[in-house]
């Protein structure tokens, strides 16, 4: 289930704090189902956050990150009304992008 992300972005005038909750299985590829068969890996591999189109964070995710990951970060700048976009791509090629207005 790749449901929408929950994103919050708040500016204090000099910095913007972004909190992101992602909806993702983040299956490690190490676990077995009740019949003993390996459950295939399914996890986010790349994550990008942009502020008004400019990349402010990019990262690589892997199987060590929990199901339904939470990410919090700050970047310099940003003002109320700006747009912050968070996007991810997973190892099956699924992708998701959600946007929030800075408060």
């Amino acid at each position: 289930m790749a449901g929408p992300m929950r994103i919050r972005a708040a500016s204090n005038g000099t910095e913007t704090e972004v909190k992101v909750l992602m909806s993702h299985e983040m299956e490690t590829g190490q676990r077995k189902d009740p019949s003993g068969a390996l459950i295939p890996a399914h996890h986010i591999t790349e994550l990008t956050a942009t502020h008004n189109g400019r990349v402010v964070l990019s990262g690589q995710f892997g199987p060590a990150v929990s199901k339904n990951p939470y990410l919090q970060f700050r970047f310099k700048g940003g003002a109320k009304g700006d747009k912050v976009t968070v996007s991810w791509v997973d190892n099956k090629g699924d992708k998701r992008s959600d946007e929030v207005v800075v408060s």
Partner: protein
Amino acid sequence: MKSRKYAVCLGVSALALMVPTLPALADATSDGIAHYRELLAEGNPAELWEMRGEELWREARGPKKATLEQCDLGQGAGVVKGAFVTLPRYFADTKRVQDLESRLLTCMETLQGIPAAEVAATPFGKGEQENIEALVAWISAESRGMQFNVPTSHPEEKRMYEVGKRAFHFRGGPHDFGCVTCHGDDGKRIRLQDLPNLTQPADAARGFGAWPAYRVSSGELWSMQRRLNDCFRQQRFPYPLYGSDVTIALSTYLGVTANGAGESIAPAIKR
């Protein structure tokens, strides 16, 4: 700069994962787990269910293509705020005391035409049960910070409280376990897990008031119905029917005991 910020985030996550294994002493381990929970609470994924629940409430669904916006949770048709902390309660239309989940079954059947019996028989986390989990996350969140005020004025409510109290103390199965075995004394622990004394108001508010909750270990959102179901499993009891009177009676007993003794923090986050 960018990579440094990211490293900080990962640092926090890694610390959170390590905390439970670090301390050598049990008390320090308990404290470590409490700290781990604090770190988790910041980004409680239950919010993902809340978002979906709010959408589901307003979405026209089922054979009757209707929303749940006319559902009466006890505060009048469509009133969600404050409903959670006054449930279970007696409903005149069904002539029975209902908790949040069983009331949602009623609304889904009468308003949307989704058969309640089928939903009740669906495994947790699947199909319409998944939708109920989202709905209870949102509905409970709408009462966050409010005191429990579960009514006992109707004779049926009083009866369910008394039945719940007895069911709580009912010991059976091969192990002679009952709810009271783990939740009848102050300051006890099973392994490292702190156990609330659910016969006492403050602990009942803390214990009952935490469900529905997101469970980190399974990545699932558990309603009170599911919480009670797993308690009965561990008690080695037979399988409690979804929305059955024993589950509603227990919630009534816990909710009434919690009245005025603490705020609802549901949907909370659990290990």
